[in-house]
């Protein structure tokens, strides 16, 4: 009943697997198609039953992420948005870092009615860079401006490439520029390198529809 966009389509995933792993993938999808509440039981073992590591033919996507999101897609077909969200919250709550990351990727392909921003916020509270990166994907559109800006700053702070932040060009604004400037000044005062991504974010802020208004103090700084 709910349509989730997969990270990678079923055939590409299946073709990347050997015969044994294909059999396992088929078994997993059949199990979840038959009973969507089996999602939580199939999620933990999905990687060791199919595979892990870079998925050939899909740039930067891991096999384990693609398989788990596919399982969510299959389960979602028989769940309404609320029931799907309840399942995803449960899987996330008891998941290891890889499972949590897959839930965040699944949310990125979720329709309007599925709002898992509470899970995105949870991931942004961690210091696990893989979760922070996944949290700032497409589902971060659901975050209010304050939370979203804090997410971008956290990426700079923890070294998550801001290239993984969805909507940077669209949402970067004056307030974000001010936050990032303050962060830059702090680094400089400490005699430390300023990450290259700081300029990437500032450029995005400068180019955004809402031009940053520089204060006199910052003008001097620029």
């Amino acid at each position, binding site marked *: 009943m709910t349509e989730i966009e997969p990270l990678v389509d079923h055939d590409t995933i299946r073709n990347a697997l050997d015969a044994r792993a294909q059999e396992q993938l088929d078994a997993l999808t059949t199990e979840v198609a038959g009973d969507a509440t089996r999602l939580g039981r199939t999620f933990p073992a999905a990687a060791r039953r199919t595979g892990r590591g870079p998925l050939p033919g899909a740039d930067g996507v891991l096999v384990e992420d693609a398989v788990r999101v596919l399982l969510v897609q299959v389960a979602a077909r028989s769940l309404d948005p609320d029931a799907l969200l309840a399942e995803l919250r449960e899987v996330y709550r008891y998941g290891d870092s890889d499972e949590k990351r897959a839930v965040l990727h699944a949310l990125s392909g979720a329709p309007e009615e599925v709002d898992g921003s509470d899970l995105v916020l949870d991931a942004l509270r961690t210091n696990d*860079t893989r979760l922070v990166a996944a949290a700032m994907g497409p589902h971060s559109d659901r975050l209010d401006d304050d939370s979203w800006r804090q997410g971008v700053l956290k990426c700079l702070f923890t070294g998550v490439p801001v290239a993984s932040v969805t909507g940077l060009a669209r949402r970067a604004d004056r307030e974000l520029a001010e936050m990032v400037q303050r962060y830059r000044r702090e680094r400089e005062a400490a005699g430390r390198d300023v990450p290259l991504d700081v300029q990437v974010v500032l450029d995005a802020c400068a180019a955004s529809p809402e031009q940053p208004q520089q204060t006199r103090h910052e003008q001097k700084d620029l």
Partner: protein
Amino acid sequence: MRIFDPHIHMTSRTTDDYQAMAAAGIAAVVEPAFWLGQPRTSVGSFVDYFSSLIGWERFRASQFGIRHHCTIGLNPKEANDLSVRDEVLAVMPRYLEKDGVVAVGEIGFDSMTAAEEEAFVDQLAIAREHELPVLVHTPHRNKEAGTRRTLELLEEADFPPGQAVVDHNNELTVAMVLESGCWAGFSIYPFTKMDEHRMVRILEEHGLERMLVNSAADWGISDPLKVAKTVAAMQDAGFSDDDVDRLVWRNPVEFFGQSGRLELDEVEYDRAETFAGSSVLRGERVET
């Protein structure tokens, strides 16, 4: 040299320890679930602890190029607390299905109570259901009797001895454990339990088969480099590089490999990211 520490409580250790361990050649660890130095009073504390073993601690280790695995179990001390026991046993299966969970443990005896025995036997059955080996703690007091009773219970449960490691052995318990067909673990401590020189004498007498050496480092006085120091003592005593590799790498790989859940491919990290991406130092990027 590659070293696998099959029993170490990294949750209680610092990033300095991780750095020193990586420098000493430690590439993989197993962190058994145990008690935290004081009793927990609700199942929620166990759930968060289990979650950290498969989440944050695994990530933290990876930042230093160390593969982190864990065991999940209700430890003997807290098995005596009937207000949490059943709830913990009920939530365990969820965690026993996770990647990187390589055994049920630590289980076994602390004070040899009826409650401990019951939880031990229950968890042997749970391990069988999940097709996992077990990591068995033996008591610090009355160790010989506790070890003997442990072996009897394993046999009564018809538990495959090759899938059980009985830990914290000494000169008085090693023979009976090896005769039972179980694996024998040794915790090398600064002052208590066992030291590396006594360990070398035990190896000379009993050989390397089904032997595991660990640091069991935790929040008490302990040393996360004790396996590396045992290696040095073995080399001084004339053991070959192959003997050393067998004891501190191939043996733990063979034992925990029975879970089918060891992940030993080279941890992919680049040195520049080792301390940078992690935020292990107060959540902030550190230039190297």
